[in-house]
């Protein structure tokens, strides 16, 4: 699988038009239904190759796009979400410098 290819599991004859927000492999138990004691084996079953991680991020991006950005009567929410997300991201990467601006020595 090179760059720009469909996932290995995607078969146009069966799955129809490609949905970039969808996982076409064999579905595992959803994370919300995993018990705490099964968490280790669930994590062990994950595919942790760079391609798979990139695919997961891509699917999340497209799921967000389909839900908040692509609908016909879209509001300002996705822009606020991007704004808050980028603010959080830059706050986190600059946190080392921000720490020096603390006003109190002891808490």
């Amino acid at each position, binding site marked *: 699988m090179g760059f720009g290819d469909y996932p290995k599991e995607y078969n146009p004859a069966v799955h129809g038009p490609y949905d970039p927000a969808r996982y076409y492999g064999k579905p595992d138990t959803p994370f919300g239904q995993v018990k705490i004691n099964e968490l280790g084996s669930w994590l062990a079953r994950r595919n942790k190759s760079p391609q798979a991680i990139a695919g997961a991020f891509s699917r999340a991006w497209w799921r967000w796009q389909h839900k908040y950005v692509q609908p016909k009567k879209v509001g300002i929410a996705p822009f606020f979400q991007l704004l808050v997300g980028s603010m959080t991201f830059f706050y986190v990467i600059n946190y080392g410098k921000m720490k020096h601006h603390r*006003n109190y020595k002891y808490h």
Partner: protein
Amino acid sequence: MLSRVALRSAAARQSTALVARGSATDVSGVRDEKNFPRPVRAVEPGKVRLGFIPEEWFQFFHSKTGVTGPYTFGVGLTTYLFSKEIYVMEHEYYTGLSLLIMVAVAAKKFGPSLAAWLDKEVDAIESDWNSSRVESIKALEDAVEAEKKAQWRAQGQELLIEAKKENVLLQLEAAYRERLMNAYSEVKRRLDYQLEKSNVERRLAQRQMVDWIVSNVTKAITPDQEKQTLDRCIADLAALAARK
């Protein structure tokens, strides 16, 4: 027949080669509409609260903490972060706060009218792009309707032709009867003429005969005979008078 089998087996080989790209469990190659329906574009976006937080995150709290739970959690978390100065309130924080107030006020004040205007524009663009398709569908439907009407009219034409044929038949019947009447009256006229002619001939012959007989009779009477008759008449009169 054999060639068809050969073609089919070649097609089957090709399709298996295509499917080989997919997973090992999915070799059927049949479109699965139930589990993989065609994706459609949503009309309404996902719901959010406070402008950006997904509704689902609040729903996640509801069963455990009630309606105020997520807000309590949010306020408690921020209070904790502020109090321990994990979130550092440096100078940019106050800039952000004022910006947040301005953005929130602007969104509240101008948001609804802007959203209405944008929705109207989107609808206009969509209807513009759809119009040719809608119009061609409408034109085809109109054509179908016109065709149906034309067929209906053609059926009416059949009725009309039927009526015209009947009309022609009636005219033929009328002409036939008229000629029949004509022939009858002509024959009657000729017969009447013959009758009249024979009547006239008989009448003329009779008159001729009467005239001839009368003239011959009067010619045959001599003066003696006339005198005798007169005498005889006078005698008779006298006899009659004597008897009185």
